[in-house]
């Protein structure tokens, strides 16, 4: 939530560059949605189709991260691409659906079995357990040596980050989304030169919500059910139990959704 008047905002930089940045759900001056009511500036409020559930609409922010990760800031993908998605959590599955819906062939790399099952259910062409096979050889096999042309890091895992440089093909677009801030991760950075990689990241956009709603609508028209991504629902009154599950069952709790009993 950018101020619009600081030097960086006036320079047209991303909202995350704002020198007075607020962030809904992370600071007292910009409260989030874990309450019966919230107050927020209308510029951050977007109408969704009437036939969506609130739980569907609560996926817009998450989906926008994976979608923007591929399409934001000049990114693109099409049916000529081989996308490799590292990590199939909520953002990874969003990036995966974005790539698939855009026509690319999609490979998902995910060590957890239940998350590989999610990837398969939501349309991945190939899923790889990097703990069971030689990841690079498997990608070579699947792609006939071409490797990935769009490689999305959506896990924040050190091994995944390091392997980006091994599975990215020549001239690949490498898009970083997963959190790794505060950690130094050894990578073979020289492959950026040898393979002419284009590596980019982006934190925070405020102009992708409308587009995300349209993209999700297109997916829903194709039969995608966002509701079944929510493995756990808790009424707001059980928020402590909800956090307990989200903290302790990270591999099983794909998405924990708080509900408030508001008529749909």
């Amino acid at each position, binding site marked *: 939530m950018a101020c619009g008047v600081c030097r960086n905002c006036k320079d047209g930089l991303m909202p995350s560059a704002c020198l007075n940045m607020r962030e809904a*759900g*992370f600071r007292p001056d910009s409260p989030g949605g874990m309450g019966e009511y919230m107050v927020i500036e209308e510029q951050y409020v977007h109408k969704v189709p009437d036939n969506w559930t609130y739980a569907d609409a609560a996926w817009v922010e998450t989906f926008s991260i994976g979608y923007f990760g591929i399409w934001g800031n000049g990114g693109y993908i099409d049916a000529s691409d081989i996308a490799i998605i590292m990590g199939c959590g909520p953002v990874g599955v969003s990036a995966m659906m974005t790539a698939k819906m855009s026509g690319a062939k999609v490979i998902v790399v995910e060590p957890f079995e239940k998350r590989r099952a999610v990837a398969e259910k939501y349309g991945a062409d190939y899923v790889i357990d990097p703990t069971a096979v030689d990841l690079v050889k498997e990608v070579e096999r699947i792609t006939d040596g071409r490797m990935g042309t769009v490689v999305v890091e959506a896990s924040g895992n050190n091994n995944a980050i390091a392997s980006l440089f091994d599975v990215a093909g020549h001239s690949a677009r490498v898009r970083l989304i997963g959190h790794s801030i505060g950690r130094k991760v050894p990578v073979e950075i020289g492959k950026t030169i040898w393979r002419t990689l284009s590596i980019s990241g982006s934190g925070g956009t405020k102009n992708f919500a409308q587009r995300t709603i349209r993209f999700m609508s297109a997916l829903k028209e194709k039969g995608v059910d966002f509701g079944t991504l929510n493995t756990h629902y808790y009424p707001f009154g059980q928020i402590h139990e909800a956090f307990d599950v989200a903290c302790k069952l990270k591999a099983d709790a794909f998405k924990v959704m708080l509900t408030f009993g508001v008529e749909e």
Partner: protein
Amino acid sequence: MKAKIAFLHKPFDLRVEDVEVPALKENQVLVQVGACGICGSDVECFEGKSKEGRYDIAPYTPGHEWAGASRASAPASRRSNPATKSRATA
């Protein structure tokens, strides 16, 4: 109007409090929350593993994966959409 709202005071210290909902300022809307996802970053903040959640100026209300119904807007706000019965998210 009072509402039950969650506040993170420090890691693992999440309290649901019955508080007065702040009056709307210009260009703000009141949203009745219908659903809110718990993100991995919410978990990281809850567990004190991330600096994104600002405990230095806490308490704060978490939740960036929210959706709800827009129930009211400040009288002085300029609006392009009807204020009521529109599901909303950000």
